[in-house]
């Protein structure tokens, strides 16, 4: 039996990219009566944490803050379900501090599902997508197979594809191979074929996950403890406001904010522990390398170098006697412990011995064995930095399908894809974030101008404007834009305005007031000065209550300490601004350009950059090539523009 239904946007996949895409698309279309469907194999697994039960970290934490500034859901869900909060690099400069939390993975998924359910124009459908419907190089819908085997066509004007590790997913544990995208879940085969038939060039990547242990079988006595920060800091500006000036404010009285509106941390906090591998374990791994899919030829695809399996570590760093293993609780409600540091695809019997040889784990039971998973992806030069494919209008890709890794990277792309899909169906110009504007912008630009050698993960060193892209100024960078784009609601906008005026008041105060004969602002550049120092020097009633805030004080200090460097970076941004956004056509034959070097033409033909800025960041493209392109290539006509034949 075949039925049909009609949506504006269909999001395929319920991982971190899919959830964020559906949330954002539903938020943008809500005032306009637009409808969104999220299709996933098992709705109870939406926003599952397939790998480590943590959100944020270095550069990733900044992405979570950016998502929050743009009205996304990841920060809210992380704040509501975090069981340990820690700021990494806390002793270094504000630009490189990365907020991170351990999450209760079940509560996290449940919170995301609860948030999605608050959007009445969003339907969650259980099913598998079998094919994409395309008319005149424009997406028109998808065909899905319901759990009961029934087929249905969903008409849609835009489709967001977030397949994660499910596209032809193949899991490896030693010699045992299982088709599937995640332990216990089936793979998706139809979409790979559909994309190939549409002319997309697909690749294959690999990632892995460690074994999970039963908490009650681990003896933590004697293990090194890893606690959270004494004063935990939340991800979301809304949580920050709820702990501060907006306490018990009406602002937060809506379902989206109800979990973070009353206290922080929201749920019970937990400790993590650290144990170690030893030479005996390394010897065992070496003796069993012929059974490791990564080493016996069973897996040929590339895995991430920043997330090596334990067998990789032992082989590549043969002289090391020991590696850390972090034991992290996965939930307050279950006994699962995540073994951070021994991601592996070795056979189960070898994993057993490895685990039993770890101090504290002598009697440990493995609840689930580690595995490696290979999956299909679409080489990302085939999308624009908007996440829309260049080949099929209205088809958007986000997350691991674009060759990235990590929940935060996926969510950032998902948000952008949901936003742009909504703009696409409303005939509005699609949005790109600039490299000087957001880590999400850096990521998208890297994806479309470089061929990833491994799953792409964000690092602060990828951002040339790192000092501008701080975690503490995401609202200033992105919230006004988000308001304009319709993803920042009234409550968040009000919070933003409150914080901005409080920061201004604080800034004026330190410029006017003196301390020990010097203006306060001059003190702020001294290394020993921190937020507490500044707060202690604010006179009673001199600044509004909202300005008496540690986060704002730290931010003001950061602005002052970086001032000279920021000015220089801003000048560089302005210098490059003119060429950056100049559009280029994406169906252009560069070999016809007179005077353009052959190598340059080949690169440009492969990547088909959508802006002159992107073209300039392709490997091997010189300033002279860019001048020739600007002379020879006319920008594509925009809708409504007069064209001459």
């Amino acid at each position: 039996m075949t039925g049909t239904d009609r949506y504006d946007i269909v999001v395929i996949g319920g991982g971190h990219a899919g959830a964020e895409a559906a949330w954002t698309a539903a938020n943008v279309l809500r005032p306009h009566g637009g409808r969104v469907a999220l299709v996933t194999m098992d709705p109870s697994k939406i926003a599952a944490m397939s790998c480590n039960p943590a959100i944020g970290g270095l550069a990733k934490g900044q992405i979570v803050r950016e998502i929050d500034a743009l009205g996304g859901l990841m920060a809210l869900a992380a704040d509501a379900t975090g069981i340990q909060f820690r700021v990494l690099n806390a002793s270094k400069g504000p630009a490189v501090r990365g907020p991170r939390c351990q999450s209760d993975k079940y509560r996290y998924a449940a919170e995301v599902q609860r948030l999605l359910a608050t959007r009445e124009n969003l339907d969650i459908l259980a099913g598998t997508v079998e094919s994409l419907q395309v008319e005149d190089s424009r997406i028109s819908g998808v065909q899905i197979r319901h759990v009961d085997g029934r087929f249905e066509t969903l008409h849609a004007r835009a489709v967001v594809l977030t397949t994660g590790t499910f596209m032809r997913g193949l899991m490896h544990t030693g010699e045992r191979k299982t088709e599937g995208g995640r332990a216990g879940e089936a793979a998706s085969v139809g979409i790979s074929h559909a994309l190939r038939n549409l002319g997309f060039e697909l690749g294959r990547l690999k990632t892995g996950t460690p074994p999970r242990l039963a908490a009650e079988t681990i003896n933590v006595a004697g293990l090194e403890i890893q606690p959270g920060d004494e004063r935990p800091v939340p991800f979301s500006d809304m949580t920050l406001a709820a702990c501060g000036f907006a306490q018990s404010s009406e602002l937060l009285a809506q379902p989206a904010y109800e979990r973070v509106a009353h206290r922080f941390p929201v749920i019970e906090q937990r400790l993590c522990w650290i144990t170690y591998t030893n030479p005996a374990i390394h010897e065992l791994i070496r003796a069993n390398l012929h059974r490791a899919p990564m080493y016996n030829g069973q897996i040929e695809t590339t895995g991430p170098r920043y997330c090596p399996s334990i067998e990789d570590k032992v082989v590549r760093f043969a002289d090391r006697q020991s590696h850390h293993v972090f034991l992290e609780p996965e939930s307050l409600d279950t006994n699962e412990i995540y073994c951070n540091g021994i991601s592996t695809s070795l056979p189960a019997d070898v994993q057993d011995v490895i685990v039993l040889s770890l101090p504290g784990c002598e009697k440990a039971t493995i609840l689930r064995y580690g595995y490696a998973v290979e999956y299909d992806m679409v080489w990302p030069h085939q999308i624009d930095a908007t996440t829309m494919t260049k080949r099929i209008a209205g088809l958007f890709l986000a997350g691991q399908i674009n060759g990235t890794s990590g929940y935060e990277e996926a969510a950032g792309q998902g948000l952008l894809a949901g936003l742009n899909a909504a703009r696409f169906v409303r005939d509005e110009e699609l949005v790109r974030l600039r490299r000087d504007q957001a880590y999400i912008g850096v990521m998208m630009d890297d994806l479309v101008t470089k061929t990833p050698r491994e799953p792409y993960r964000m690092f602060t060193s990828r951002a040339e404007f790192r000092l501008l892209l701080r975690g503490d100024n995401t609202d200033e960078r992105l919230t006004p834009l988000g308001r304009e784009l319709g993803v920042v609601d009234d409550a968040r906008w009000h919070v933003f305005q409150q914080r901005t005026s409080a920061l201004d008041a604080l800034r004026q105060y330190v410029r006017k007031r003196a301390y020990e004969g010097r203006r306060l602002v001059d003190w702020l550049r001294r290394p020993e000065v921190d937020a507490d120092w500044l707060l202690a020097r604010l006179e009673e009633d001199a600044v509004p209550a909202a300005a008496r805030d540690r986060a704002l004080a730290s931010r003001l200090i950061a602005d002052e300490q970086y001032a000279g460097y920021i000015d220089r970076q801003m000048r560089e941004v302005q210098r490059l601004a003119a060429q950056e956004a100049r559009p280029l056509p994406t169906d252009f034959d560069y070999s016809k350009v007179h005077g353009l070097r052959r190598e340059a033409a080949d690169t440009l033909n492969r990547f088909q950059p959508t802006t002159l800025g992107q073209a300039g960041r392709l490997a091997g493209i010189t300033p002279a090539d860019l001048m020739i392109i600007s002379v020879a290539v006319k920008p594509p006509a925009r809708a409504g523009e007069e064209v001459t034949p």
Partner: protein
Amino acid sequence: MSSTDTIVAVSSPPGASWRGLVRGSGPDAAAVFRALVGGEALPPSHHLVTGRLRLGDTTLPVLAAFFAGPGTYTGQDMFELQCPGHPALLDRILHAAIAHGARLAEPGEFTFRAFLAGRLDLTQAEGVAATISATSDAQLAAANQLRRGQLGRFASDLVDQLATALALVEAGIDFVDQEDVVAITPADLHERLTHLHDALRDLLRHSRSWGALEGLPRVVLVGVPSAGKSTLFNALLGRVRAVTSPMPGTTRDVLAEPLKLHTPTGREVEVMLVDVAGLDVATSTLDADIQAAAREAIERADLLIAVDDPTQGKQGIAQVDARGVPVLRIRAKADVPIPPGVTAPPCDLAVSAQTGAGLAELRRAIAERVGERGVSISGEMLALHPRHESALRHALEQLDIARQLVQPHTDEAMLPAPELVAGAMRSALDALAGLGGQVSPDDVIGRIFATFCVGK
């Protein structure tokens, strides 16, 4: 390739020529022009005026013009400076312009700006592309050649060491939560940065570029007009640099080139050989300026070579006021007989640039007098293109910034602001890309993975 900044380039053909032309274009053209030529007020637009170009502690007479946009080739404010077509001098003007905020133009960039300003129609656009492509091909070829050469090898080595050091700093930022990553200590980093800084500084010191040769002992040729100074200048250098002609006053400006010599102790050193205008009676303002420049050159000399030409029947040496500077007296044109009735003045050496007679003795005599103060050179001296010198200087400046940021913390275990140090190092690395190869952020991350066991 932005058109919002101010660019500058030599517009005369490469190599030595009679007149050199330096052009600039962009929003700051007026400011750069004023900084170079001096004066608060700009001259009337589109008028050639005489001025004095300020180069460090000296000035040089030039013809200069300012063109107010949009009625210009590029549609922007532009300027032109005309001066002697001496490559080292033109380099120096470019560096001065860069120091005042301009940047070196990319090949074909003036034409490109003219295109952006709508100065060229579409049929001319293909010509523009061809121009850009030809100049850029030549530059790419030159760059490739350079990379294979001594400078290229040096720069690649420097880039490699710098990228490794940067990887160690970035590892301490991006992988602090990793078991194996130990951030580089400030003391170690300081040592590496100092080493790189000094290597780069020494390279610049020993490169054949005007700025770096300031410190060389100056050997100045003086004498009456047409005494044969320029011919001797070329003969000593073993190549044609000065424009020579039998017309008096051909050398209207100061010309200088490094001269390689062997000292009596066998060291290979360089001194600066300077040729100045003939000391004559000034007949115009410009001539007066030129002669002032010549006299200044004489005052700064470490050795004067007084060139006399008794074949003309004149004795010019008496006119030279040596002001305490040692003088070596030369009889030029030794191959030409002295007219009867003229008494040859006393001289230390007789030289013929035509036959080469006496040249070796002259070199030895110079070496004996100032050679020990010459700057030692090893092997082939590097000749730097202004683009490369500017890149090397930027890298040096950034390494110095990085070093100063690290310095106060060398006794501490950890850098408090590694992101600022990394920023300066990244900037230095990018500046060296054209010489030693591009190192992308991904390459730096790759070095981290190769060094540390990263990953939980």
